[in-house]
């Protein structure tokens, strides 16, 4: 398994930062060695199918690489994909197919090679350990998640649900896809938002009391991130578990059954 990372502009003066360490987290203590790598930063414009390199960054005698969304003037919902690569690898200025990320695993630890992904607004910030698995970027797939991270928030708090979609296979054109938010009981669609491959689809959600919500796309897969914030001093960010995490054994079959049951019901 190897992992991509990302930066995006989610709007409302929320800044996205990512911190990558040269030491693999979750490693055995006996394997305390650093990994030599650099990162390439690539973007794809909304209507373009080519990846364009906008930066290439090394550690420069420090232990961390820190990248910030404001360094790259990203448009609202634009993704910058960060690719860990071999130091010796020549990173081209343009690609049709994004290179695979370097695996930074050094033992059999079952936890993914993650980065600290921060979001901050004013004096408030929050982070989570995240990644976008290379394997996920090779499939079109479908997407389903729920709203547990929006529960019991005050009415003054706003939430953004962000669907991160990275697709590294060659594209012939940018298709328009739809992300829906629906009532989980009635299956009625509450709102829909268009998005394209290799973008962040941002849904701004006001308080929905205790209504149970689901978010889905029959077009592509993606990773859901929830950012709850107020205008002043509060911000919380976390990603949802994928449906496979509801199952201990037979994860793949369990997820297939669950997604089939929901996506066949939802309009």
């Amino acid at each position, binding site marked *: 398994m190897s992992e991509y990372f990302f930066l995006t502009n989610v709007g409302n003066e929320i800044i996205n930062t990512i911190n990558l360490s040269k030491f693999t987290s979750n490693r055995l203590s006996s394997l305390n060695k650093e990994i030599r790598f650099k990162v390439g930063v690539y973007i794809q414009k909304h209507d373009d199918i080519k990846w364009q390199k906008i930066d290439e960054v090394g550690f420069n005698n420090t232990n961390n690489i820190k990248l910030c969304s404001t360094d790259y003037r990203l448009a609202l919902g634009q993704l910058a994909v960060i690719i860990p690569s071999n130091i010796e690898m020549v990173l081209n200025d343009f690609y049709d197919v994004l290179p695979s990320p370097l695996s930074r695993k050094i033992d059999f630890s079952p936890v993914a090679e993650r980065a600290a992904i921060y979001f901050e607004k004013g004096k408030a910030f929050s982070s989570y350990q995240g990644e976008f698995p290379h394997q996920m970027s090779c499939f079109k797939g479908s997407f389903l998640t729920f709203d*547990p991270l929006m529960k019991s928030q005050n009415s003054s708090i706003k939430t953004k649900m962000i669907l991160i979609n990275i697709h590294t296979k060659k594209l012939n054109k940018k298709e328009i896809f739809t992300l829906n938010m629906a009532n989980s009981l009635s299956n009625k669609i509450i709102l829909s938002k268009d998005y394209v491959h290799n973008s962040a689809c941002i849904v701004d959600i006001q308080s929905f009391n205790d209504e149970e919500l689901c978010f889905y796309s029959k077009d592509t897969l993606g990773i859901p991130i929830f950012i709850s914030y107020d205008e002043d001093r509060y911000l919380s960010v976390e990603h949802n578990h994928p449906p496979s*995490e*509801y*199952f*201990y054994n037979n994860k793949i079959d369990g997820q297939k059954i*669950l997604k089939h049951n929901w996506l066949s019901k939802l309009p």
Partner: protein
Amino acid sequence: MKNLIQKLRNFNINSRPHSFALTKLKQIDSDISDLFTYILDDYETIFIGENSLALMLASPIECVHIFHFFDKSGSLINVHETKSSDFHFKLLITKYISGGSKFGSFTHHIRYSNIIMIQYKKLLDEVSFQHRGYTGYRNNLNSGFSYVHGNFVECIFLKIKKIN
């Protein structure tokens, strides 16, 4: 060869008691919970748990949510049970629920009625549920909760009602 031996040795040392690979080979006849933490000393803790079968079937089904609360030394101090048919169940943890303890840990499991277990036996024989859940913390009632998803070591709820 030396590298391979090293990797095999690491795999053995580093294997979890219930690794992902093993779940393909061995059916676990129980549901698995992450271990969550609560803090009530000037903080509020809320937990959002999943009704796994309802989510799997995309239809509300009543279950009993079972919470085992442990104090800071890891001793079981209270068991709290609540019925719900919601897809996600919300529990605001109070000192009454935690048995008076201000901070410690807890697990989340679910139980369905015998009628439900028989009705969906074939499906339930194919999977074991695991409870990852989401825990929210705040120290200001006017603020929002800061949520984290379950991440800690798994606990198994055996049929003999013993936590491992």
